[in-house]
C-alpha cells in the first residue's frame, strides 16, 4: 500500500513515481505543484483522490495564455489529513478548446466546467449541462478570453453619460504649454489612466 504518511515531499515522490512525465515541484511547505500532460489529468485526479486521500476539490481554474495560444486548466486539491495542497496544471489548445469532464470524480466540477465553457469556450466532453449558465443571450467571443475587450464593449453597448468631454490630459497640457514634442516611442512609457 502507498505511504499514508505523506508530507509534501512524499506526495511529490509518489506522484513522480506514478506519473513519470509529470513535472513536480514542492513550492513550499504544504504546497505541491504538478504540471501534467492533458490526457494524464483524469488518471491523476483519480489517483490523487482514491490513493492519496486528496478528497477535497478546493478549486478549478482556467487561465488564458493567449500569447502561447493555450489555455491552462488548474485543479487544486486539498488533503484534509496531511494538509497538503496540490495545484495540478495542464495546458490545452486555445482554439476549439476541448477537455474531458471530471465531474465523475467530483460532482461540483460540473459547475466549474459550465463556467469555463461559457467564459472560455472550453468544451468538456461528458458534461451534459454545458450551455447558458451565468450569461444570457451572449453573442460573440467568450468574455473571459483575453482578446475580448471589456472596456470597448461596454463603451459601445452601454450609454456613457455626457458632460465629461472637457477633461484634459495632464501630460499633454504641460507639453502643449512648453512646446515639448514627445516622440511616439517614448509614449509607451507615459503612465496612463485606466480609460486611455
Amino acid at each position, binding site marked *: 500500500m502507498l505511504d499514508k504518511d505523506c508530507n509534501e515531499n512524499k506526495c511529490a515522490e509518489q506522484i513522480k513515481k506514478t506519473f513519470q512525465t509529470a513535472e513536480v515541484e514542492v513550492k513550499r511547505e504544504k504546497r505541491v505543484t504538478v504540471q501534467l500532460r492533458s490526457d494524464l489529468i483524469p488518471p491523476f485526479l483519480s489517483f490523487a483522490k482514491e490513493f492519496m486521500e486528496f478528497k477535497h476539490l478546493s478549486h478549478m481554474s482556467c487561465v488564458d495564455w493567449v500569447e502561447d495560444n493555450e489555455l491552462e486548466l488548474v485543479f487544486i486539491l486539498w488533503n484534509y489529513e496531511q494538509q497538503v495542497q496540490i495545484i495540478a496544471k495542464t495546458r490545452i489548445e486555445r482554439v476549439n478548446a476541448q477537455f474531458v469532464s471530471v465531474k465523475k470524480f467530483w460532482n461540483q466540477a460540473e459547475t466549474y466546467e459550465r463556467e469555463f465553457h461559457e467564459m472560455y469556450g472550453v468544451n468538456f466532453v461528458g458534461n451534459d449541462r454545458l450551455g447558458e449558465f451565468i450569461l*444570457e443571450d451572449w453573442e460573440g467571443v467568450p468574455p473571459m478570453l483575453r482578446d475580448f475587450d471589456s472596456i470597448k464593449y*461596454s463603451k459601445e453597448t452601454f*450609454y*456613457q*453619460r455626457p458632460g465629461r468631454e472637457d477633461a484634459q490630459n495632464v501630460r499633454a497640457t504641460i507639453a502643449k504649454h512648453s512646446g515639448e514634442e514627445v516622440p511616439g516611442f517614448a509614449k509607451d512609457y507615459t503612465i496612463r489612466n485606466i480609460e486611455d
Partner: protein
Amino acid sequence: MMNPNINEKDKRRIRDIVQDFARKHSLWVLAYGTGCGAIEIPPTMTSRYDAERFGIRGSATPRQADVLLITGYLATKTLKRVIRTYEQMQAPKYVIGFGSCTINGGMYWDSYNTINALDRYLPVDVYINGCMPRPESVIQGFIKLQSLIAEGKADGADKYQENLEWYRENQKKIIHNWKMPDYNW
C-alpha cells in the same frame, strides 16, 4: 402660487393634493435586492434606522408595491427581470436609483455585463449619492421622493408611458431575446 400662465393640464386639483399626501405616507417597497446596495436596506428597515417611521415598508410582490429600489448595478440579465417587474407594478409607482452604479456605471463602468445609466431603461425619480448609500442617505432619498410626490413631480411612470418607444428601443439594444408581454398599465 396662482400663476396665470399655467396650463390647464398642469393645474393640480385638491383631489390630487389629498391623494399625493396619502401616497407619500404609504410607500411600499418591493423586496427585490438587485445589487449590493441591498445590504443597507435591512438596517434601514429594522430597529436602528426604522424607516417605518415614514410609512415605508417592504412588500413581497410587484403588484402591491409602490417603490422599486434599484440598489446599484444592474446586470443585463437582471435588467430584463427588473423591466418586467416594473411593468407589473401598478401606478402610482416610483423608482429610486442607489448610488454610483445607477448614474454612470460606478465601479462596473467597464463591465460587459452591467448597464451604466439606469435612466435610459427605466424612469428614475430619485438618485441617491454613494457607493453604497448609508441608511441616512436612503432615508433622505425617501424624504426627497415624498416631497416630490407631494408636489406632484414624481411622474416617472407617466414619462415611461409617454416615451415607451424610446425606452423600448434602449432596452432592446441590451436585451436581445425580447419575449415579454406588452406594457399595459
